[in-house]
């Protein structure tokens, strides 16, 4: 018997395809799928989080901000004034009864005000000093109350935590320090950025409340004028995600035209502390 050793053709087990092409196709497919899953998760989280009872949100906030310096209760003239104004505005905004809002007045130069978890609103002295009328202050407060009513802070928290967890699990950083860093108070105080849609809705609701309260919308645009005048360099972080300031002023002016007439702005009460401080400076 004669045996032969034939030459076996190449390419039976190994296909001559470009591995890079294959690699990038797979990379695109996997990252595309990951993105879709992430978006779905985000939408679900944001939708589900609104079903969280407000009581739970308050408890969570207490757990997180427990000993934050901003949230120490203070009994001052301005504090009482803000409390009263918020209480009155809440009625006009049809805030549900179980939603308790707490205003915190902070004596700092920051030109800012924000709403955060657990129905807390923080107003800085810097902003209050720049606002020329009660109408403008009411607009600021009504805007923040609207955020709380719409559950924006907890929706943002849900969104942030979903993204954080997803990124951490992709990066494989599944250690215990992750959960603590996700729930750190600094995250909530500085990074509570709402989406454009949330801001627009809050603007609209706030304007309605101010109109219902004063009968007109004069002075409502002042907050945004202050922000504009303050310049971009001093633009507080919190406002970076807000709709364009110009657009918001234009929107308010459109509404104001509907309530034409000779309206008077309600002045801010003269606070003892503030006047004393001014005289020292001068």
């Amino acid at each position, binding site marked *: *018997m004669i*045996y032969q*050793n034939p030459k076996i053709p*190449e390419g039976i*087990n*190994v*296909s001559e*395809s470009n*591995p*890079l092409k*294959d*690699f990038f196709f*797979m*990379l695109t*497919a*996997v990252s595309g799928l990951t993105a879709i899953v992430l978006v779905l998760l985000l939408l679900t989280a944001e939708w589900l989080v609104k079903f969280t009872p407000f009581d739970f949100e308050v408890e969570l906030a207490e757990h997180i901000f427990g000993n934050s310096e901003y949230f120490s209760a203070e009994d001052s003239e301005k504090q009482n004034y803000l409390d009263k104004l918020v209480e009155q505005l809440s009625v006009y905004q049809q805030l549900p009864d179980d939603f308790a809002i707490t205003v915190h007045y902070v004596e700092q130069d920051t030109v800012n005000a924000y709403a955060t978890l657990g129905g807390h609103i923080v107003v800085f002295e810097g902003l209050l000093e720049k606002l020329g009328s009660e109408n403008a202050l009411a607009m600021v407060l009504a805007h923040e109350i609207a955020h709380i009513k719409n559950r924006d802070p907890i929706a943002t928290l849900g969104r942030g935590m979903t993204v954080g967890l997803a990124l951490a699990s992709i*990066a494989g950083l599944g250690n215990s320090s992750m959960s603590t860093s996700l729930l750190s108070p600094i995250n909530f105080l500085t990074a509570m950025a709402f989406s454009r849609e949330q801001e627009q809705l809050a603007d609209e609701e706030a304007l309605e409340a101010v109109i219902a309260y004063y009968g007109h919308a004069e002075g409502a645009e002042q907050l945004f004028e202050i922000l504009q005048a303050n310049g971009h360099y001093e633009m507080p972080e919190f406002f970076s995600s807000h709709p364009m300031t110009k657009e918001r002023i234009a929107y308010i002016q459109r509404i104001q035209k509907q309530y034409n007439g000779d309206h008077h702005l309600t002045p801010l009460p003269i606070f003892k502390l503030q006047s004393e401080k001014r005289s020292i400076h001068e």
Partner: protein
Amino acid sequence: MFDLIVFVILVTLGYFFGRLAEQRHFKSIKQREHLYRSVLCFSSRFPPPNPTPVESTLVAGNVVISIDYFKRIAASLRGLLGGRISAYESLLERARREAILRMKKEAKFKGATSIFNVKLETSSITKGKNQQVGCVEVYAYGTALIPVNRG
């Protein structure tokens, strides 16, 4: 971010060096296969009845080939999507052919003309260890028949 840069560098390095090594290896395999064509390999356990006297001896050849980082990532992506892992197919092909070649080299050195009962064993050396670049061992062995000249 830093992790991502390291990752991209590793994948790029893996791709270029891995591809270079593979192309060179295949070239050398083809050359040596031609060189050892005279040694015939059979998988049957016994040789056909043959009047010429022979001596028999065990011959073996083994090889360990490592995957590169690029292949590893490509394979793990394949693991998510399913389908042929072409990155590993070429790796195993190289390992099998190299192991047989080494066995044939030994057989030729001993003066054999054929090898019977040729078998291949494959094992993954880094089996079960996470976060490690794997490598594969292929071991080829068989009974070499050496013709004996009896004057």
